[in-house]
């Protein structure tokens, strides 16, 4: 299951106005204003949300460069993991395509 079609050169962004985030211990509770659903995020999912909220990026950039945002070597955050984290956000409607 995926939210819909996707392509390497499609550009995506998260809009901070679309969600609220509250920290409870190590867990982030993210309320999605569009869907009305409360999600529980771990640190890495939260980092992906912050990464996408910082500005638009192509899917290619997201999967290849997310590890730099985490400040870890590429092996520690392989493309497959970055793609899965992105798809999770896409599934719950927290990313929007803004180009091309």
């Amino acid at each position: 299951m995926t939210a819909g079609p996707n392509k390497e050169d499609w550009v995506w962004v998260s809009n901070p106005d679309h969600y609220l985030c509250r920290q409870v211990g190590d867990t982030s509770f993210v309320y999605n204003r569009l869907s009305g659903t409360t999600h529980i995020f771990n640190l890495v999912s939260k980092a992906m949300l912050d990464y996408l909220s910082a500005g638009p990026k192509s899917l290619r950039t997201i999967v290849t460069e997310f590890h730099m945002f985490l400040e870890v070597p590429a092996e520690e955050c392989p493309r497959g993991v970055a793609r899965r984290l992105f798809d999770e956000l896409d599934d719950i409607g927290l990313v929007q395509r803004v180009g091309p």
Partner: protein
Amino acid sequence: MKQEIQEFLAFAVGDLPLPANTETLSGFIAWAQREHIMGQVAAVIDAEPGSKLSDICENAKLRSSYDRRMLTYETDRIKRALLGTGVEPILLKGSAYVAEHLFAGVGRRVSDIDILVEESDLEQVEALLKEAGWQPEATTENEYDQRYYRRWMHELPPLRHAVRRTIIDIHHRLLPRTSRLNPDHLEMIKEARAIEGEALRVLSPTDRFIHSAIHVFGDGAMETPARSFLELYYLYKDLSKAEGQALYARAIEVRSDGPVAAALWVLRQYFGLDIADEGQGLPSLRLRFLIRQLAENRRYRRLAEILLYIRSHYMRMPVRQLARHLWHKAIRRA
């Protein structure tokens, strides 16, 4: 009784200030709650802060904000599922009212999402929505229903989202192929317009009213008459003077003059709207009887409900086929 319902509807749309008589007020609110229109009522009346009335309105507003959010989000998800395909579905009913910020959509209770797509896009749309998590409903997944829907109906068997549990009806016509009434959906699709900045379309304001009338009087959506009447009222109010004048001619053009005549009769009868007769005349005595029984909660309401149930099926398919269909349903239940 007609007078009471006229008065209640006038309170409901804010044409009359709420009654000072607390007994009438209490009767009105109990009626609005029963008819599932409290959300719409709450949107137009001013309740004194801290009063029980304001509690009731607040409660209804919170409830209807959910329906609105759900429709908007599901529309967003449909758009996402079709992203890049160039298919632009036409939103029908509630999702269209909300997407267009119409008053008809404010506070209105809804349960599922209706979209209309060209028959040539049907297969692709169904496949992509299934890919995105919408699945056939367990109750209609059997072969008989799947075949039945595809052969005779105006929509695909309903799909339910695996995670969000929302239901979507994908229409390719406005009424079943077998229906006595055969609205010209192709002509209406021709007049559909894009929502600015979105890969989505909506019917023209006139066709939107016509479709609502078809749904209410041709498709049996009369279980909650007050809710249907409010919808027709607000949609009619949204027409410009010119659109209002051209409405009945358009209804004839798209072969929907019967339901539109009934809708206009209701608007004159219950809201006192001054609508010129463009030749539509009166709906049949029988239909007027049914509407009155239901709307005014008269003695034969239950009978009217049964007759309408039969009528809605009768309108949808020829008698022989109806008998076969009901027979099949009965056997399957046994």
